[in-house]
């Protein structure tokens, strides 16, 4: 088990290093891809159809929160992810909807193994997408989106300030890209997602504001901040491959989720990089209007 954790941490950490600069989605968009014609492995949902992918995730996490400690912590992470696409009426501007929900947990230690921090988090992302490109071999969907994200860090070494939270509720831009291709005579599909919050409300204590003060005096106002990409740089990116296997479509991917806020005078850098594996299911929705 420990070996698996170590491998996951090492490989995932390497991936996140490589991917943190520019997403694979961006690279693939810029490259002249030579894909084959549409295969049946992955296509966007039709009107009133939903495609849902339930995945388990494992990888690594990294956190540094100067409210709790000046040290860096890292360790393995596990999670669950639910991802769904819905097709709306084709005559609507945003004719697709996407939601991505995940929960994750990570026990982390600092480099010296002298301390430990636990991280738990939840994120929920909702996007309305306009099909900028949709043809046999690729789909490019762009649109506005909203995301709620909350991470809680628990530093087991601290006495009066053991816990700190970081989170935001923000609107942003979302880009989804799908490419269908064949490799070694097998039809496959690659999906890439990038989301970044542009404006919203972020939570972080007002410098050394004790949580006890928020609770005792009801003074939460100082802990709420207007966020922009400059004081709350955050993004979610995901690259996944859909592979058919005996009538089932599996999705194997890597998602990278980052918050780097500098709110309230302290800085926080929290990322979770996780490999995901799940299976994709297609559902027919009820006609709501009938």
């Amino acid at each position, binding site marked *: 088990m420990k070996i698996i954790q170590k491998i996951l941490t090492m490989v995932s950490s390497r991936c996140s290093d490589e991917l943190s600069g520019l997403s694979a989605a961006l690279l693939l968009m810029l490259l002249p891809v030579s894909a084959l014609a549409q295969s049946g492995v992955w296509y966007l949902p039709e009107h009133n159809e939903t495609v849902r992918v339930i995945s388990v995730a494992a990888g690594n996490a990294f956190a540094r929160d100067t409210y709790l400690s000046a040290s860096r912590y890292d360790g393995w992470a596990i999670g669950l992810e639910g991802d769904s696409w819905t097709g709306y009426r084709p005559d609507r501007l945003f004719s697709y909807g996407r939601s991505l929900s995940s929960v994750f947990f990570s026990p982390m230690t600092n480099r010296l193994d002298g301390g430990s921090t636990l991280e738990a988090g939840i994120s929920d992302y909702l996007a309305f997408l306009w099909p900028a490109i949709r043809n046999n071999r690729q789909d490019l969907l762009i649109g506005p989106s909203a995301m709620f994200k909350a991470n809680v860090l628990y530093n087991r070494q601290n006495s009066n300030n053991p816990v700190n939270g970081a989170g935001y509720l923000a609107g942003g831009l979302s*880009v989804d890209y799908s490419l269908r291709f064949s490799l070694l005579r097998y039809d496959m599909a690659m999906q890439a997602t990038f989301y970044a919050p542009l404006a919203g409300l972020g939570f972080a204590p007002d410098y050394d504001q004790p949580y006890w003060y928020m609770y005792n005096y009801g003074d939460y106002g100082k802990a709420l901040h207007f966020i922009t990409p400059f004081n709350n740089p955050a993004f979610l990116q995901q690259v996944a491959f859909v592979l058919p296997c005996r009538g089932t479509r599996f999705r194997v991917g890597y998602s990278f989720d980052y918050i780097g806020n500098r709110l309230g005078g302290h800085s926080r850098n929290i990322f979770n990089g996780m490999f995901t594996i799940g299976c994709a299911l297609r559902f027919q929705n009820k006609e709501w209007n009938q």
Partner: protein
Amino acid sequence: MKREIYIRLTASVVLILLMVACSQKTEREDMEFSNTPAGNFLSLWTIMDERYCFFDLKKEQLGVDWDEVQERYAASISNEMSSKSLFEVLCSMIGELRDGHVNLTSPYDYGRNWSWKTDYPSNYSADLREKYLGKDYVIAGDGYFYRILDDNIGYLVVESFGSFISSNRINVMFGNMLLCNGLIIDIRDNGGGDLRAAEFLASHFTEKSLPVSYSCYKTGPGHNDFSKLYTNILTPAKEDMRWIKPVVLLTNRGCFSSANDFAFTMKALENVTLMGDTTGGGGGLPMSSELPNGWVVRFSSAPTYDSEMNDVEFGVAPDIRLDMDDDDIKAGKDTYIERARKFINDKLVNP
């Protein structure tokens, strides 16, 4: 085709802009220290410099100049020094602040400066206290003991505020003491605990809500970056019995942190008289952080002031100053308790 290229380029530009925004770094974020003696030293000094809340007070009362402290102790730091030597130097450096809430925890020791207690007479004897409590005292909670003394005065010992006394047990205690003429609360050598436990006990000694203290917290790295003052209101424990007869609170230098808070809270009440020595202080709510080598530093972060806006970091002065008398000790008497009994009995005659 042109439309596709245009869309790709636009999306790429937006993504690149977002990535650039994400990679912006501030000076603070870059400020990470190496795990070397020099790095750990600078890390500790900086954490304290940016987050400790009593620099002005310590400069005024103790002459501590934190920049000068850095210069002085930096000379003792070398990258060849052992971990234990580094620990000693760092403990000496933070010891300059003479703050019981400033500690450094390493795997082999707990760095502290307890001069706020050890430099003064203890004015307390555990043996004598045991003698007054006798063998049939009531245990009303973890660290809460009481009995009724021979002259019909209640005697409550609070060893620690590490845990709460329950409402039920307070009601039983006050019920048992219903006919008592007064109550002596002995918090000598109570090193603190949970602020809320102290406040909860104090709320049983007032009939009306009143402001008992003010507090604030640090809002930035500057020595004077503080939030507005928050008023702490003590509200009566309305559901429970409340004590309105005379109370004498016995204090000594060993009363620290939450016990210090309890002392100034009780001092604001009309029926309470503080007797004994000034408390040990500890008027700052502590927080913790960590050095690159994993050692944990605790520091005062949010200062508190009493109801008259006096700083309580150096303790709360009693209404009646008292020292233990050697002759009393030899005679097996506790000067503090005897004076408190006399005070309450005198009040009966001359209210």
